[in-house]
């Protein structure tokens, strides 16, 4: 017998079923909610400041350096925006998979494969710049899609949990690309140079994203692409029939199956799509030159991981992912200025992770509060005002 495949490692959130609902006090609840968020973030930042102080640094200097690097110094905020683009694209793709009930944590690998495929096409394909760019980005998209497709295939054919397979594939991706960078017929630089050091071929300059020059800052056009994608996906998820069916699958796969939503087709497509987004982000990273103009083994530079964190931070809302991507991008570009303060630049990574953790707490507290209220309401209903006795005589 083949049941609708009940993958044992499905992600289930513990949401209480409260018939009648807990009593709600909207204004007070909103205030409390905002307060918990503020307190959470403050605590997280304070802990980071403590960490800096404990290792002999000055947190004021760190904070100042971060602001300098991300916003204040000339050209900084343009760079920050450009950095945010691939983060946002990865995040949006992740959200699509999450809404379908799938856990994709292999974006770093999908991004790298996408960047590599993009590079391969970009340095070889003839034709005008815009055409090559389009083709290269499509290749990047396809590469990421394929890489996630491996995990999708494993999940729907053999019930291999995608949370594990996407992760393991990241490491395989690194090795694959490292191999590719040793062969000129794959990724290795074909130009005769002395110290190639296993790097890819530099991108021809006509095949890159153009820039907007705004107030002395260079903002890559990839930012526009990222914004458009975020808005499109947000609309699609909330308004379209396809998005409706996807959400159904994520919330209740059995009910969805009854209604004609195939877990394999819709879920598989969602996972492949999220890989495609990550791959596209890799291509965007390459062609907007924010990580250099050629592929290296370290090219993905944690963009995949951080894009995933952005999605978590945004609590799976594509529009919220936009400001969140900016925050993370700011931390990234800001950390470049940390060297001068003597504080190890990895502190930025710590701040990012602490922020995500901090933002997990308020909803959890709200859920507990809701549940407590519901229990109280049921009891208030359950036992009355008048005293009652229930005796069990011996």
């Amino acid at each position: 017998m083949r049941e609708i495949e009940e993958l044992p490692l499905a992600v289930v959130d513990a949401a209480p079923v409260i018939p009648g609902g807990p009593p709600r006090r909207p204004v007070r609840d909103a205030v409390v909610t905002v307060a918990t968020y503020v307190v959470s973030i403050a605590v997280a930042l304070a802990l980071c400041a403590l960490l800096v102080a404990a290792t002999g640094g000055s947190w004021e200097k760190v904070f100042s350096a971060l602001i300098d690097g991300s916003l204040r110094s000339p050209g900084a905020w343009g760079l920050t925006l450009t950095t945010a683009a691939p983060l946002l694209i990865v995040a949006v793709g992740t959200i699509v998979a999450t809404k379908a009930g799938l856990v994709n944590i292999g974006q770093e690998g999908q991004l790298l494969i996408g960047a590599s495929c993009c590079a391969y096409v970009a340095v070889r394909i003839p034709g005008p710049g815009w055409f090559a760019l389009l083709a290269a980005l499509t290749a990047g998209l396809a590469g990421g899609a394929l890489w996630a497709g491996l995990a999708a295939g494993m999940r729907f054919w053999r019930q291999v949990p995608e949370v594990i397979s996407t992760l393991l594939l990241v490491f395989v991706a690194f090795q694959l690309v490292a191999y590719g960078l040793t062969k000129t017929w794959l990724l290795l630089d074909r130009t005769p140079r002395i110290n190639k050091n296993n790097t890819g071929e530099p991108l021809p300059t006509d095949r890159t994203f153009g820039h907007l020059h705004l107030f002395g800052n260079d903002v890559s056009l990839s930012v526009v692409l990222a914004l458009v994608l975020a808005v499109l996906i947000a609309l699609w998820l909330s308004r379209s029939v396809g998005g409706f069916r996807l959400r159904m699958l994520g919330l209740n796969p059995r009910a969805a199956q009854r209604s004609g939503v195939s877990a394999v087709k819709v879920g598989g497509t969602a996972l492949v799509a999220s890989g495609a987004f990550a791959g596209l982000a890799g291509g965007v990273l390459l062609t907007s030159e924010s990580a250099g103009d050629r592929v290296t083994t370290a090219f993905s530079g944690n963009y995949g991981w951080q894009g995933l964190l952005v999605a978590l931070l945004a609590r799976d809302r594509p529009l919220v992912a936009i400001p969140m991507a900016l925050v993370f991008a700011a931390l990234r570009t800001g950390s470049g200025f940390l060297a001068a303060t003597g504080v190890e630049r990895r502190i930025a990574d710590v701040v990012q992770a602490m922020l995500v953790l901090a933002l997990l707490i308020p909803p959890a507290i709200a859920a507990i509060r809701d549940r407590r209220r519901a229990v109280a309401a049921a009891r208030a209903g359950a036992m009355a005002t008048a005293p009652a006795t229930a005796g069990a005589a011996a």
Partner: protein
Amino acid sequence: MIWDVLSSSILYESAFRLAVLFVLAATGEWMAERAGTLNISLEGMIIAGAFGAAVGSSTFDSVWVGLGYAAVAGLVLAAVQANMSHRLTANQFVVGLTLNVLVVGLTAFLNAELKPVVQRAGVVEIPLLSKIPLVGTAFFGQSWPAYMVYLAVPLAWFLVFRTRWGLELRACGENPQSADVSGVHVNKRRRQAIYLCGIYAGLGGGFLTLAQVGTFEPQGVAGRGFIAIAAVIFGGWTLKGTIAGCFVFGTAQALGSVLQALGYRANPQLLTSLPYVLALATMLLFAHRTRPPAALARPFVRGLT
């Protein structure tokens, strides 16, 4: 060539040494998963343990203290995971993932600031047994922290199958509602299972630093926590199967250096990716045939009715 490899004691010795980390981490994860929790912060626990061991052994010039710090570091991480997921009801995948990223950043940061100098553990050969041909040094001639597995694995088996605690743990992993109604404190047992997992994984990380590699490398664990999770799946959630899987992956990882030592040349990327590919392949073969604990990765909240 195959015979050359199979008949060299280096293979078995390396395989065992590389398997220790897997065995400790996977055994911990096995306990956690039998309780119904899926602990993807396992990777983070290992890294935390590895770093803790570096700091502990460096500060006190003692391998024992290093191991102690390793266990505590793993436990601290486990405490965060357990309490956020099984007390505060945050999504356990999200928490686990974030903790992994946090630990990587935190340990890299602290490592650069503190620069610990690791005190390595010496090899202790068990008399007589280590003279067994071929596999003697593998099982009985390792750095002494390796022998932790001989205690840790039977202890885990005993705890899960021969104690009341273990019975309750298994009930929590199969049917937490029934366990709750029978008077078992489900989330408390689940948290305890994760704490144990943290200690085990931390010790595994400690072994990595103190006996296997000799230093702390921020990227040193490189996804092996996830391979350990794959070992549990490979083993069908049985302890024996899990350990078997650990040795398979340990061997795969050892192949690279063994081949090199024997004078063969092989594609370096292929060798490095071998454990991961093997983990994927074994899951492909076995995942759909085995049955996980029925309540795995399903959080438990006592309902209203």
